[in-house]
């Protein structure tokens, strides 16, 4: 009585979610074993929000994550190898080992790495979305609806029926919503009805700051009213709900219906980063959220539907572990270290400018 199509779709959500979890837990372990440097930002507990969103991305859509979006990247298709290369600071890393292991993206997949400034990349997403609107307009798919004096048009345009735009995906935490960048981005997107989906992962904490120290409203989604866009709060640990709600928002955005702010209630199981003991939270709170483990929520739904299949799950798990094991073997044994001076050649696209910085450096240390 399981609906195989449905089931198949569900496992298509489950696989990246499990991959995210396994990869994440493995990286935590590797970091604690001292096998790579920097620190590690675990996103364990937040997989459903990330994967449920990430699976709606298409080629050409930009993903602007913050520092805890492994799941969205996995859903977008990042490989375990790329991720390992990243945290191990290898030459094969998406950023060539230039950035911090935990601020990453993947240019090959249109994922912009965050620089480290919380909320900055939220603005970038609106800018990309503005570009998508211009794309459609240049293709003649956008009609501007002027007011009768011909002065006002902002946000007042119609997309040709049937046309779909690219969509920008912006992720950020509850804390990030206190930043002016958050405001300027959502305001801009609201004004022009840009195709962007704002996903706030409300995990109740911003480092040691409690939600109430950054957000004066009951819900983060209450902020949407300030931007004339729909705001909704959902169970961020239920991948089916995330997938459905985000899916609707993405469809609306692509079809010219404007942006949406989606607040996903979720939780990070561990510290802000691996060096944070996270002793500002109560044990009860952590325990309560662990019960709402996105993987367990998925399983419960599937069991209810009679679609939970141990065999499929075991197979998926084995495949993922194999990919991860391979990636670790590769990164520890076969990957290459970056050239210590390679950063001198990538600051500019204009190569003569890189030569300027290199010459200065060679004068110093050459």
């Amino acid at each position, binding site marked *: 009585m399981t609906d195989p199509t449905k089931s198949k779709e569900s496992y298509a959500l489950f696989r990246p979610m499990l991959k995210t979890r396994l990869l994440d837990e493995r990286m935590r372990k590797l970091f604690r074993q001292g096998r790579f440097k920097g620190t590690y930002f675990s996103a364990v507990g937040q997989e459903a929000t990330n994967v449920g969103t990430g699976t709606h991305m298409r080629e050409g859509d930009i993903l602007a994550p913050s520092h805890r979006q492994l799941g969205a990247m996995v859903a977008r298709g990042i490989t375990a190898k790329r991720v390992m290369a990243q945290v191990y600071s290898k030459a094969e890393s998406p950023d*060539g080992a230039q950035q911090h292991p935990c601020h990453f993206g993947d240019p090959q997949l249109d994922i912009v790495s965050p620089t480290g*400034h919380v909320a*900055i990349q939220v603005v970038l997403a609106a*800018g990309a*979305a*503005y570009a998508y609107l211009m794309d459609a307009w240049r293709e003649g798919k956008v009609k501007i609806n002027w007011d009768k004096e011909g002065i006002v048009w902002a946000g007042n345009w119609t997309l040709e029926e049937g046309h779909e735009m690219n969509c920008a995906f912006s992720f950020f935490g509850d804390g990030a919503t206190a930043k002016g*960048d958050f405001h300027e981005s959502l305001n801009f997107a609201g004004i022009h009805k840009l195709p962007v989906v704002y996903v706030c992962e409300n995990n109740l904490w911003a480092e040691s700051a409690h939600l109430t120290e950054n957000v004066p409203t009951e819900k983060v989604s209450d902020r949407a009213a300030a931007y004339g866009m729909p705001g909704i709060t959902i169970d961020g640990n239920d991948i089916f709900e995330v997938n459905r709600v985000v899916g609707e928002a993405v469809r609306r955005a692509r079809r010219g219906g404007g942006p949406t702010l989606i607040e996903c209630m979720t939780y990070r199981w561990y510290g802000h980063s691996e060096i944070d003991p996270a002793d500002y939270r109560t044990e009860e709170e952590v325990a309560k959220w662990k019960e709402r483990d996105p993987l367990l929520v998925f399983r419960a739904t599937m069991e209810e539907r009679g679609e939970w299949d141990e065999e499929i799950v075991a197979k998926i798990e084995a495949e993922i572990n194999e990919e991860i094991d391979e990636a670790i073997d590769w990164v520890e044994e076969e990957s290459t270290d970056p050239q210590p001076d390679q950063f001198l050649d*990538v600051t*500019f696209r204009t190569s003569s*400018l890189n030569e300027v910085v290199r010459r200065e450096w060679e004068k110093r240390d050459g």
Partner: protein
Amino acid sequence: MAEMTLIQAITDTMWSEMERDEKVFVLGQDCGRYGGVFKATAWKSQEDGSPDQSEKMYDRFGPLRVLDAPLAENAIIGGAIGSAIAGYRPIAEIQFMDFIDCAMGHIVNQAGVMSFKTNGSWCCPLTIRTPFGGDIGGGITHSQSNEAWFCHAAGLIVMTPSTVEDAAGLLRTAIRCDDPVLFIEHKKLYRSVKGEAPTDPDFMVPIGKARIHQSGSDITFVAYGNMLIRAMEATRILQKEGVSVEVIDPRTLWPLDLDTIVNSVCKTGRCVVISESHSSYGFSSEIAARVQEGAFWNLLSPIRMISAPDTPYPFDPAMEKAYLPSVETILKAAKGAMEND
């Protein structure tokens, strides 16, 4: 080969680049319907070099490509960067350079690091145009010259034109450049500097190439913007007194064309740097430091650094006069240098 104002050359260059490449677009406060508070995004020139007021940039290219942006510098710069990584070539206007501090994070830690943090996979073809400088009665926050901040950062090209030809050539270079460029325009020069505009629609001035504004053999002046104009005035006076001055306009402030500057000082043995920004940690110090490094053995006297005080920019006209380096200031410094004190 029409004679036109410096600002007209800026408008014309944007216009021609927008005609050429539909990925080029403009955004900024009051840039659209209003044509910009300085009218830089208003009208292209007609035959005689004056603005053709029959059609605004906004009407020619439409409201999406000449965007009246919100009062939000982070949205303007951060948004422009987002559009750049999605394939566009934004020209973002910050209405006065004084307000650029609002978007500092996006410029330094997003635009400037884009190529670096993608290991060269992506770039950020962003041009930020902004009017800087004083001598226009603007007071604290309409007169600042904060370019040194961006020169003391990574991944940003900083340039400024002081002639009509350079306005066209440098701005075209900036727009076509795949890296972020901070293009600063001296407000005082907008309409006081006139000249023949280049006719070649592909005319460009290379990055990092100074212009020897005037050749000479006794002393070297280094300056840009309004201070270049004052340096030229001082030069004319000195010339009459038999002093031969070489005047160099660096044009790009990062990277600097140190070869041209150092070679000049090696020849003249004396150097005065003039800048209207704060005296500490600015352009004058940078040039002096590099010149003493490169021309040490040829220096006949210490390099003179002339700048504005480390105070905010005053409004009162008499104060403004006292604040800015004057022609007399330059003459005094030059004479000091000539006397090898």
